[in-house]
């Protein structure tokens, strides 16, 4: 696949995600089940060129989507959207989650499209199986946390409409099930982020002879992990469930996003290259 075809596929994806986001908002406002179905179809239609573009680039340049803002953010958006589709297909009420996730996916991918798309060959330092584990679990953890945040937003919206009857697909989406599912995604993200940190430490030890150096992005990955540790601690040992849990889940996301994007912009770090190359 040529770079031009890849870019065309990505723009097709951005368009599909934008339409999908708009349709999900409309479906919630007008409580139209049919529109939500079309929105979900549009999301699925967007995933196809998205996967094709990422796989095509992977094959062309010989490494996975983990070098540069464009590759990193695009792959995170894909993971988030795929999780959403899986949820929405498993249980119809979870279509409501699209109203929170699809605008995020659209904005992330739109931002990625504006960044440099320089193709960077893999360097000897990056040629490690531990890097693959590190990156794979980073994507899984970020996807899980973003999904958890989307669910928490839907949970809060649902709570604000508790008394409304016949409220489209919101009606069958109980606050309890949303709370439970949000907690499951936070838990999964927490475990995945832990594995990501461990794999990164092992990789660092293989590459440089030290497993931890308080590099800013290492530090902020640890900070993110601990922030979610607090979130889970509050839920499991201090009874923060329901609305309070939804709010702290939402409040934790900016820390995670800062660790992903903000740190490499604000700090000088050996990790900076992964996001800023070509940028």
């Amino acid at each position, binding site marked *: 696949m040529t770079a031009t075809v890849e870019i065309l596929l990505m723009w097709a994806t951005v368009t599909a995600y934008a339409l999908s986001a708009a349709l999900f908002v409309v479906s919630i406002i007008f409580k139209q089940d049919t529109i939500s179905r079309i929105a979900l179809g549009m999301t699925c239609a967007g995933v196809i060129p998205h996967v094709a573009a990422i796989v095509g680039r992977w094959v062309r340049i010989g490494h996975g989507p983990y070098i540069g803002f464009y590759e990193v953010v695009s792959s995170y958006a894909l993971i988030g959207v795929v999780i959403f589709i899986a949820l929405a297909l498993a249980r119809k009420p979870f279509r409501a989650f699209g109203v929170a996730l699809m605008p995020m996916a659209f904005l992330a991918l739109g931002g990625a499209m504006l960044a440099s798309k320089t193709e960077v060959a*893999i*360097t*000897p*330092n990056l*040629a*490690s199986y*531990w890097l693959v584990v590190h990156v794979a679990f980073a994507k899984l953890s970020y996807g899980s946390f973003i999904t958890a945040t989307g669910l928490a937003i839907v949970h809060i919206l649902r709570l604000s409409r508790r008394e409304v009857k016949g409220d489209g697909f919101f009606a069958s989406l109980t606050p*309890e*099930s949303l*709370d*439970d599912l949000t*907690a499951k995604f936070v*838990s*999964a993200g*927490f*475990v995945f982020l*832990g*594995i990501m940190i*461990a794999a990164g*430490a*092992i*990789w660092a*030890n*293989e*590459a*440089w*002879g*030290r*497993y931890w150096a*308080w590099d*800013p992005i290492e*530090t*902020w990955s*640890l*900070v993110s992990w*601990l*922030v979610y*540790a*607090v979130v*889970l*601690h*509050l839920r*499991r*040992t*201090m009874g923060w*469930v329901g609305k309070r849990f939804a709010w702290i889940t939402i409040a934790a996301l900016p820390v995670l996003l800062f660790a992903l994007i903000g740190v490499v912009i604000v*700090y000088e770090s050996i990790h900076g290259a992964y996001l800023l190359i070509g940028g």
Partner: protein
Amino acid sequence: MVARGFGIIDSRIRTVSRIYGFLRSRRLAVWLIVLFIIYVAIGSIVPQGDPGSSAVSTWVAGHPILAAIAIPLGLNHAYSTPFFLLLLAVLMLSTGACAWERTRRVWLRTRRDVASTKRVADRLRDKPTFVIPVEKLGASDVASAFKSLRMRTTPGDEITEARSGRLGTLGSPIFHWSLVLLFLFVGLGQLTRSEGLMGVVSGSSKPDVEASYGVLTTGPLHGAMSGRLIAVTGIERSFSANGLTQGPTPFIELRDADGTLLKADYAYSNHPLRYRSTFIHMNADGLAAVVSVGSAGSMGQSEVLIDYAAESPTGVQPTMVAFSNAQGVPIADVVFDLPPSAENTVAVAVRYAPVGGLTGPDAREVVLTPGGSVALSGDVVLRIDRLTSYARLSVVDDWSVAYIYISFGLALLGLMLALFVSPRTLWVTRVETESGAALHVLVRHARGDAAFPTRTENAFRASVDSEGA
């Protein structure tokens, strides 16, 4: 006297109990983690290093107001300040107290389960989680409800018990104990590890002793260096591995002090030479000159390593060397450097002067190729015997790494058990009342699965309904 003695013991027990109560507090745990987060986030703003280092001095120049607060507080060494170490110690104690508390609870619960048959029977009769009136319900219906809940049943004479996720109760203790071990191994590892850079000329070796290192950091409890020999038998300029050109790659031999070969391998990116607790990484390569200095008939040979990049860490001998005459009297300072012309790769630039005069008018500079010489002072001559390259090796001795990995792995395993394996228990019995037969169900579950009672009730109602249909 005896009473007073018991009083002291009582008072001490009360104090220990109070401290334990304080440390196991969930609120304390949360606040300690929050404090840790805030501290390391602030610490990440300030570059870490000595105030004289280029990163710190650049930051100080760019942020004078912040620096006026951060540097006196020691935030340029944020992760080794007494405050941070104290915070880690309290966090470890708190984690240990939580681990102990959780283990105690699991133990008590296990004991209670063994001796609780009568209590369960009483609760089932008087205070069940839910009751389903049934006219006629067979054991197979109960079994189908359990099956739909994916629980293992143990039928009894009157009460049927079903359980799932028993391992889940162990998750939290395993997680917390593993974290305690992680703290311990990290702490002990930092106290006993050594890490340094040494330059070894291709075709020669150096012993693992302090004098061989250009930069060496050792923990306060680190013992003597191993004394093993680290030899670089050769450096391949374009070594390939994993389908990638690795750049200059040394072949390293690690030998015991008596010369026995312990390990030999290439060292390149993500592929250190590893022997027990020793890791040897390729850090960089550079130009090396083997030189002879002295008068005719009494020349002494030495190796001089030349760093390519001025900004790279000084893992080698200084490129300025002070030479002495046969009587040991210093006669000249000499700086060895790369040749002025990048194309002249088989030469070395030599700047020399009488002692202390390198920046003065008496300093001289020549470019020498192998075999070339220059008179330093009187009849003392400096001769370049050969030019070669050296490997700057990062040598780490840290026994704790494997244990840290194992502890963290166990912590993650405990975490997964705690988060995803919810221990659940159900007791079911049939109770005959004046109004008819009823199924009494008692549910016990972990906090992680708040919807379990509802799910259970739905499963039982579905079984009863299907029976009715």
